[in-house]
């Protein structure tokens, strides 16, 4: 899921992400590009790098060199080099995390994988998680990757996030609803 606080850059990141995705799809280099973009995003969201990125005194060439050097171990291809050069030219290193995010979304769509967040009050058992993943996979008709969180404040039950859609079966919600019902 995209980070909501940086959503204002989504419209800037979309063309880059889409171009990279379509290119990678054409050349059948999707996994390589995915690794490349996600690593670049990691670099860009590092606190030290962020300081550099946000400093107006940092020249574009310095940033370009930095990304080139850090990403060198990945065997960066010529096209990926060009991608970095393009970002440098337009001074868009800041939005690398959003580009990677949108790339991942496209990738997940292609691979028919849904990321599902499961929130429970206590740590769920492994068997239960698998069972739930199977049911949800049937429901959304694609593979699912389950990421689990524990939030004791929901008291009991579970909350499932599938993208924007939320299936809320928590005891907390039931209690709030009951309160509203009794008060109203």
């Amino acid at each position: 899921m995209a980070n909501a606080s940086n959503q204002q850059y989504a419209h800037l990141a979309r063309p880059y992400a889409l171009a990279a995705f379509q290119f990678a799809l054409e050349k059948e280099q999707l996994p390589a590009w995915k690794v490349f973009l996600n690593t670049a995003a990691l670099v860009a969201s590092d606190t030290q790098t962020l300081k550099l990125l946000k400093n107006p005194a940092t020249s574009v060439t310095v940033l370009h060199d930095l990304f080139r050097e850090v990403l060198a171990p990945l065997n960066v291809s010529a096209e990926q080099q060009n991608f970095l050069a393009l970002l440098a030219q337009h001074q868009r290193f800041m939005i690398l995390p959003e580009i990677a995010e949108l790339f991942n979304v496209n990738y997940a769509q292609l691979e028919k994988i849904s990321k599902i967040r499961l929130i429970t009050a206590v740590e769920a058992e492994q068997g239960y998680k698998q069972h739930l993943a199977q049911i949800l996979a049937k429901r959304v008709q694609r593979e699912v990757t389950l990421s689990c969180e524990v939030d004791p404040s929901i008291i009991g039950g579970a909350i499932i996030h599938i993208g924007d859609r939320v299936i809320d079966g928590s005891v907390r919600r039931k209690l709030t609803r009951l309160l509203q019902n009794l008060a109203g």
Partner: protein
Amino acid sequence: MQVKQLSPTEISDLIKQRIAHFDLKPEVRTEGTIVSVKDGIVRLYGLQDVMQGEMIEFDKNTYGLALNLERDSVGAVILGDALHLSEGETAKCTGRILEVPVGEAMLGRVVDALGNPIDDKGPIKAESSSPIEKVAPGVVFRQPVSQPLQTGLKAIDAMVPVGRGQRELIIGDRQTGKTAIAIDAIINQRDTGVKCIYVAIGQKASSIASVVRKLEEHDALKHTIIVVATASDPAAMQYIAPYAGCAMGEYFRDKGEDALIIYDDLTKHAWAYRQISLLLRRPPGREAYPGDIFYLHSRLLERAARVNPEYVSRHTNGKVKDKTGSLTALPVIETQAGDVSAFVSTNVISITDGQIFLETDLFNSGIRPAINAGLSVSRVGGAAQTKIIKKYAGGVRLALAQYRELAAFSQFVSDLDETTRKQLERGQRITEVMKQKQYTPLSVAEEAIILFAADQGYLDNVPLNRIAAFEQDLLSYMHTSHSEFADRIGKTGELNDDVLKTLKTIIDTFKSNQSWD
């Protein structure tokens, strides 16, 4: 609120019962995150399934209205207080269009734009609720306007008659008596069974309070709903207030009754919508209004209509048969220095079925209601006018038109020929007759006898400054000596030789008993 004394066991039983019947299914909803909050506008991320115009639920019982659906975000206006909302909070889709309570229980109450009571008279037990945005009845369900809606003002009922289901614009500068006409029209519906809705948009709270008090004083609040969005309410509330009022009026229309709705005023409504649109970053057009400002008012006023019995019986599931329903709208527009060619006023003029044009000069020269007879028209009301009034009002318009042409010569009366002088005098008298005090709407019989007297020349020998007194005495004479006749005319509005003869005798005897020369 009155609370019956209950024993603790009864209370716990009640609670147990309610808990037992409580639905405990998991809730499926679409969630989004607030990205920014400013000036009553929120920008949301997520909410992929949101519909245009859908209600969005925020924390602490605050609701919003989704107005802009963009590629990456949703723009929504907050209904009510926005101070407790902050970035990063979640917002939920409700899957519902905004609804307001409607029904008989609303009558006599003062409510805000969401239908919540603000008059300290306790909660409203409304029968049902209705979405504020509805599509107007289609062509096949409509019926021509054919019944009069008496405003009780001689000038309007004679010259610019309003029919049930008509949209008649009241337009004029500030302080020309626009609201006064609307209030008189409401007061006159006391015994007609027409339910009234007064929607105050962007007005001072003090003006609204005085309107409520005046209606109460004249026993007109019991058939009236007052929907209030004052100048201090958020623009979103001012924007939805007329639609909320319209939904309340449609309730009566759809069950075969007649209702009258007054939008006071649509200029401020357009301002509120302009504010919202600019904050939502919609491109501004002429006078900085958004592109859909015409549709804003046309879809609202189109809902005022007269519907046929088939429509009514369909809406009441066959309970009400052979009755037409109507919603008459009197929108108000305030002009600046008499400029009717401003954007919003030309729009509303073209949407409505006619306008009542009020002028500052007339108002200041003592002609009240300050109706400009030349510029005011009613495009459909003529078909609905009461027969007896229609017959004698025809002469009024003509006489006034001739008078306006000659008025410039009135200084040299002595040099004019007999016909011109007569026309001038008739015009002056009719102008005098058209004056009427505020809060004194007249019945059909009262209007008829005065118009008859003016048309037939009974006033020609009455001095100008005594016309008002003549009128008052004539009316009280009719009520004391011929009350059944007045009642009959009021009920039927019929016109035949018998009625004419009675009218003649009443005025003849009245004039012969007193000296008016």
